[in-house]
């Protein structure tokens, strides 16, 4: 059984993650390979690649886990791949535009929020829930795009990876295992993109330091130091996140959270979904001047760490509620097929 379970996890989790991450990494690598003077046009293309990472990973995971869906849909949650495809197209088109960050955010939020409000309807929905979905896409999109502007690409990728992993755990607690696996696939793809971006950014910092040491220019040395402390504003930041990519990512997260809530048969409350969606907001608390002079890893750790604390606290709260309601105690673990599988694969 163990090899089959490992193969299954490889198929529905790792493979989509690799596909999604590869799409984003290719963009970063292309930029990294270009000479500094030729990078500007390539950055915009790489930002498009960043916008497709999460939807691509989700689509691949959905295809491998559930298979193709027919029209009309057999179940309402089967509209998720269509929603992801729309988010991918809108996110990548707007990411390539020359709009300022607030323009990108408002355009993506209005288009995706409006479409979700009209078409993404799950069971037991009502006009208030649909309006709430539109509002949450606008609000969470605003916060995430603000975070992407403030934090470096590594930090943004790591924070969103933590959010999707948190959503995945909540899906499992809400008894929606397959959507949990898909969320984990998105999380893994974003984590892969973040790690690759981080490695290439560090390489770039090292290259700049070498150039600085060779030339002995004091101004360049200061730039490199600032870049090391806050890569988002520095030349060593190869592909910064756009507001369009961040907002489309936020829209995906909001739709997944609403889907998990609509089919919830666990002890997950709306507050739990909301807390995880808003967790990157806490990263804004760590302002740039606070981290000036610190190493890049410190900035990423502070921001991702704050996000992780909120997500873990939310999950522990939701899981403890779930455990409290199950009078059977340990029986709850052994009787869940997904848990059985995970226990066996250890």
């Amino acid at each position, binding site marked *: *059984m163990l090899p*089959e*379970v490992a*193969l*299954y996890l490889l*198929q*529905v989790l790792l493979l989509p993650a690799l596909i999604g991450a590869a799409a984003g990494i290719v963009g970063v690598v292309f930029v990294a390979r270009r000479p500094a003077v030729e990078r500007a046009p390539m950055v915009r293309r790489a930002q498009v690649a960043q916008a497709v990472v999460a939807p691509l990973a989700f689509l691949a995971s959905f295809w*491998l*886990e559930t298979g193709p869906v027919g029209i009309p849909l*057999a*179940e*309402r*949650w089967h509209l998720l791949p269509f929603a992801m495809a729309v988010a991918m197209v809108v996110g990548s088109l707007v990411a390539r535009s020359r709009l300022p960050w607030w323009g990108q955010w408002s355009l993506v939020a209005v288009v995706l929020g409006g479409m979700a409000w009209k078409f993404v309807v*799950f*069971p*037991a929905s009502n006009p208030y829930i649909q309006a709430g979905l539109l509002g949450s896409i606008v609000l969470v999109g605003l916060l995430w795009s603000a975070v992407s502007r403030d934090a470096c690409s590594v930090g943004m990728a790591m924070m969103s990876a933590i959010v999707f992993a948190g959503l995945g755990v909540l899906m499992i607690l*809400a*008894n*929606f*295992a*397959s*959507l949990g696996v898909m969320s984990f696939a998105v999380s893994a793809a974003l984590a892969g993109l973040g790690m690759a971006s981080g490695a290439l950014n560090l390489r770039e910092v090292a290259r700049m330091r070498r150039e600085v040491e060779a030339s002995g220019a004091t101004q360049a040395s200061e730039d490199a130091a600032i870049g090391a402390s806050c890569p988002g504003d520095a030349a060593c930041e190869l592909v910064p996140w756009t507001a369009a990519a961040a907002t489309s990512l936020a829209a995906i997260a909001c739709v997944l959270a609403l889907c998990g809530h*609509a*089919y919830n*048969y*666990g002890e997950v409350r709306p507050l739990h979904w909301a807390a995880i969606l808003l967790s990157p907001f806490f990263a804004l608390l760590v302002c740039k001047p606070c981290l000036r002079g610190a190493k890049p890893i410190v900035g990423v750790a502070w921001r991702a760490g704050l996000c992780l604390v909120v997500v873990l606290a939310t999950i522990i709260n939701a899981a403890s509620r*779930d455990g409290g*309601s*199950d*009078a*059977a105690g340990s*029986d*709850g673990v052994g*009787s*869940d*097929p*997904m848990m*059985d*599988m995970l226990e*066996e694969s250890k």
Partner: protein
Amino acid sequence: MRTLILVPSLIAVPVLALAAIEPTVAPVAVVQPSALGAMAAQPAPAAQPAAASMTLDPVHSMALFRIQHLEAGQFWGRFNGVEGSVSWPLDDASAPMIKAIAKVEQVDTGSEKLDGNLKGPNFFNAKEFPEIGFTTTAGTRVGERHWTLTGDLSLHGVTKPVTVDCVVTGVGKGPTGRKVGFECQLTIKRSEFGMTWGIEKPPKALGDEVKLVIGLEADETKAE
């Protein structure tokens, strides 16, 4: 004056009480003498007693399901409170026409967590498909009080014809009239109803074949 009131009252009470009691034997059809000649001239039609209309007693009706877990044990669960109706003349003259509905919310495995998992979209998807229904369309007698029923099973948004082996377990008396018990069995492939989670993905977590044992108890419905 008091006697005038008492006497009719004493007569009326037993009369009304007798009227309230249903006859325990089937009513005998009264044939008019004028009609006898006409009937004798024609071939005698097969006796088709009127089918009794019955309502399923949800307290004593349930559907059990059995499925293989991790290629090992056979796991049992049940749906409580099966509702519906039965139309049957209470003998083997014709097949019992059963209409039964189980509510997915009433699934009971003994584990609250597993119940939630079964109600979720990976299995029954109770939010979208809250009921499982069976409606008899025809029946073939295979023995004394033993029928093979064919009908439509609606599960997970898919309706398919199925064959059910059904035994009448007994006809008794309940507080409100006659009671009839049925035990029906069938085996289905859940993949045919779009419930594929756990068959191949995750691999072999749960079997595809599901055995259903349905115990029904129906109460005769009084004519209004």
